[in-house]
């Protein structure tokens, strides 16, 4: 019998599963598909802007405790948040995917985006770090003619308007590949053979002036990423940084693979294409969750269940034209108004976000889903990440922070509470 069934293979589910597996639990992850990790920027955002005022945040850990009391970060408290992030980056480092923080302790990094805005994040992959706008070196942003997701002049124009030194340059795309499709992942794979790296390095060396750092679209290899990035830096003899592009996200895929590796190494399993369709509970105790794959039903029995299906984007919630909005597996109580008139604002980029996206599952500070009156809905169910109420992770730039910290913390709490597998 499983100690823990994790539903959802996004950052929240994987963080929980790795923590459980490393603690010796028998854990399985089931998921309909890969989570948002394949789409996001690959950075670990903790908190970038305050939800009500949109004020930029420099010290996210401290600021997290100024949020409203129901916010997941307040349920966690600063210590649990800090510890979880530290644990998570240790795992990544063990998979040779280092995620350093800002040189100034506890401060956000500010990194250029693919349109030249400056985005706040807390931990970034090593290969994005040299983009930090507080560094003094002028930036050389290099694009490839015909690459549809990266426009160096636009980036440079916006960086310049914000007072940063930057200039743009182009290389021909066919120096990387001759493919018809120009998918970022394919391009990244094309850069892995040493010959391709060498060609790119030589071209960059010609473009780059002494003292400059070079920004490139995030396509510097997938599995061989570290080697590609290090070789380029050595041969060009300049700091090189990646700028994340539109999905699919190469840095996100690297992150996913590192976590997957950590999970396997600790004895956990991920099973894809498994959509949870039904469950059975006796009293307050969930017995099993059922999936249908290859046309046969499969019951997953476990002692504990962890819901990490990721809100609207992950498919954890669904809704219809009558204004009904529900959690797809357990039909848990939600804070979202059952009225479409109350879901949106008239402005897409409204600083306070769309109300529908900050609704979700109500939990206690163990991250157990609760009824309105605070009693747990089930004794052996936990909910983490994007499904949680009272946060809009995309708007606040807290997507990865909430996922990782609630995933790890809920699991640790669950272990402590049930003594399972210890």
């Amino acid at each position, binding site marked *: 019998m499983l100690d823990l069934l994790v539903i959802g293979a996004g950052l929240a589910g994987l963080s929980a599963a790795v923590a459980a597996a490393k603690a010796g639990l028998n854990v399985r992850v089931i998921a309909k598909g890969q989570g*948002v990790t394949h*789409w*996001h*920027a690959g950075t670990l*955002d903790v908190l970038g802007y305050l939800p009500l005022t949109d004020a*930029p945040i420099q010290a996210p850990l401290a600021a997290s405790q100024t949020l409203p009391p129901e916010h997941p970060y307040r349920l966690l408290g600063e210590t649990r948040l800090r510890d979880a992030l530290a644990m998570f980056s240790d795992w990544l480092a063990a998979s040779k995917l280092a995620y350093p923080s800002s040189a100034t302790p506890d401060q956000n990094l500010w990194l250029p*985006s*693919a*349109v*030249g*805005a*400056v*985005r706040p994040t807390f931990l970034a992959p090593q290969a994005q770090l040299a983009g930090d706008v507080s560094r003094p070196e002028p930036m050389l942003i290099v694009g490839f003619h*015909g690459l*549809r*997701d*990266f*426009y160096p*002049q*636009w980036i440079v*124009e*916006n960086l310049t*308007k*914000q007072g940063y030194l930057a200039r743009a340059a182009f290389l021909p795309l066919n120096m990387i590949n001759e*493919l*018809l*499709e*120009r998918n970022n992942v394919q391009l990244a794979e094309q850069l892995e053979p040493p010959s391709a790296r060498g060609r790119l390095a030589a071209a960059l060396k010609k473009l780059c002036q002494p003292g400059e750092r070079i920004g490139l679209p995030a396509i510097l290899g997938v599995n061989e990423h570290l080697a590609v990035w290090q070789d380029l830096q050595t041969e060009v003899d300049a700091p090189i940084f990646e700028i*994340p*592009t*539109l*999905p699919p*996200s190469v840095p996100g895929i690297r992150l996913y693979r590192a976590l997957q590796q950590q999970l396997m190494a600790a004895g956990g399993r991920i099973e894809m294409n498994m959509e949870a369709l039904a469950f059975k509970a006796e009293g307050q105790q969930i017995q099993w969750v059922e999936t249908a794959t290859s046309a046969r039903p499969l019951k997953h029995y476990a002692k504990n269940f962890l819901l990490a299906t990721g809100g*609207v*984007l992950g498919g954890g919630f*669904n*809704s*219809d*034209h*009558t*204004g009904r*909005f529900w959690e797809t597996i357990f039909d848990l109580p939600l804070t979202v108004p059952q009225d*479409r*008139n109350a*879901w*949106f*604002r*008239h*402005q*897409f*980029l*409204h*600083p306070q976000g*769309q109300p*529908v*996206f900050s609704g979700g599952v109500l939990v206690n500070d163990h991250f157990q889903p609760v009824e309105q009156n605070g009693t747990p809905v089930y004794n052996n169910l936990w909910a983490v990440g994007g499904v949680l109420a009272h946060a809009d992770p*995309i*708007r606040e*730039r807290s*997507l990865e922070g909430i996922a990782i910290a609630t995933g790890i913390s809920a699991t640790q709490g669950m272990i402590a509470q049930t003594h399972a597998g210890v």
Partner: protein
Amino acid sequence: MKNLNTEILVIGGGSTGTGVAWDAALRGFQVTLVEKRDLTHGTTGRYHGLLHSGGRYVVKDPRSAVECIHENQILRHTHTQCIEETSGFFVVTPEDEGDFPDKFKAACAACRVPCTEISAQEALRHEPLLNPRISRVFEVPDASADSFLATHLTAQAARQAGAQILVYHEVLDLITEGTEQDRRVLGAKVRDVATGEEFNIYANMTISAAGAWAGQVARMAGCTVNIIPGKGVMVAMNHRVVNTVINRCKMPSDGDIIVPIHTVAVIGTTDERVSDPEKLRIEPWEVQLMLDEGDKLLPGLSKARVLRAWAGVRPLYQEGFKGESRDATRALTLLDHQSRDGIAGFLTITGGKWTTFRLMAETVVDKACEQLGTRKPCATETTPVPGIEQGHYWLGHRLHEVEENRLQGELICECELVTRGMLEQATQRNPTITLDDLRRDIRLGMGPCQGGFCTMRAAGILHENVTLGMQNMKASPDAELVNRKSQIVNPEWDVAYMQSPAHNATADEVAPSAQHSALSTPNLLLRDFLQERWKGLTPVLWGQQLKQARLDELIYLSILNSDHLPDADTISPLTDFYHFDGGTSREAESDHA
């Protein structure tokens, strides 16, 4: 002030106005058309997509039905590539029985609308999703039609005949002389919306084809035209659930037509009197009504993914009419202000349908000839617009061209198969102030992701071209040369092929010009287009489409941080319009609270 003189001034760049410009230019008049936004900004760009056979009106409004079938047959030859030969069914659902179907059949015969009764089984063979409980089906020559393309082509045909088409030029006032009883319109005071420049256009004859705004224009001449603005809501489904136009066989009502158009199927519509043609807000109940009614034709429709909703306002007119807008006639109306109001040099053409725009143009230009004392015969009936050699539109044509020419790597909008070359050519040849202009030109952002990916790409490409163009300019001080080059590199290019990936495989070199000033503000282009898409999405966001909207947030907030770009305060002439109801963003927010 650079005042202009012309023989005929046309106000309005919808189907009617461009039709008038085309007709008058073919007859040899010197013509200038002014449109306050882009072509098809008005009702023409917000209609249902149906080339009417007339079937819908045979019982209730036979005059309009006769006009429709007459024009239906002509437009197939003059605007071939804008029309997809879908055919149309009038189906009798269990709710629609009674004597209407027989009346319908008889009225089709009386109006000469070809109509064949086919068995319900046969209809279901063609359209398996149709309600299996339908009892009778009549087939008529309905078709689906692309009004964006058709209007562009009509405008292009007018240009080729010598007309001048000025988009983003708004009529502020009409210039009149004379007394209350004996007045003449001499032309119009116009503002270039992009530059703010104001000037006068003097004309022997001013023709108002301002659609639902015709009342406003008439007021500038000092007379009253009571347009009955009837708002209609349409809902686009993510799939082409039918390949035939499906009508309910009953008196025209709400939500009783489904039109397959390009990759989607559109259900509509409603008819509600509104106060202002720019108030296009859609309420959830209106969408709900469309889906509920749609279920009666195609059971289960309301569970399918919905892409987008929009509304248009009918320019209905009936002298002295006081009833519901649904009951006002759809026949065309020519207002001769000389005999009606004692105002010379001014005509209004209104009412009608998209289907009858050519006839409307012919009618008003005939009257203009009469008043100007010349006799020039109409030529539009037998003169096709450019590009009809492409044949009727068919669904797979873009994919076919992309594959034949191996253009996969050039795609910037995977949903609608828009290539970089198409985008560049369309921008180069048509004034572009917003990305929405390109949506109308080449269907950018119209597919399932509603601009999620292509907004960033389009803004980036346009900016890149302008920047590179300016660098070229600096390198070669001979601006004339650069300009000329851009005109001759691809002499075959024509608006007629604007939507064809194959004909836009290689882009011309781009020359910067005044019209491109908007393109050098990519941050604004991006913001405007995201907001424009949002406006049409909010009425239909649930289920899959809500998930899509959240992905768009992930892209534009989390990955790109585009809500914290410089120049956050710059606005375009359309920014306020994209914030609901044409009000300012601030007003819209406070009425939400």
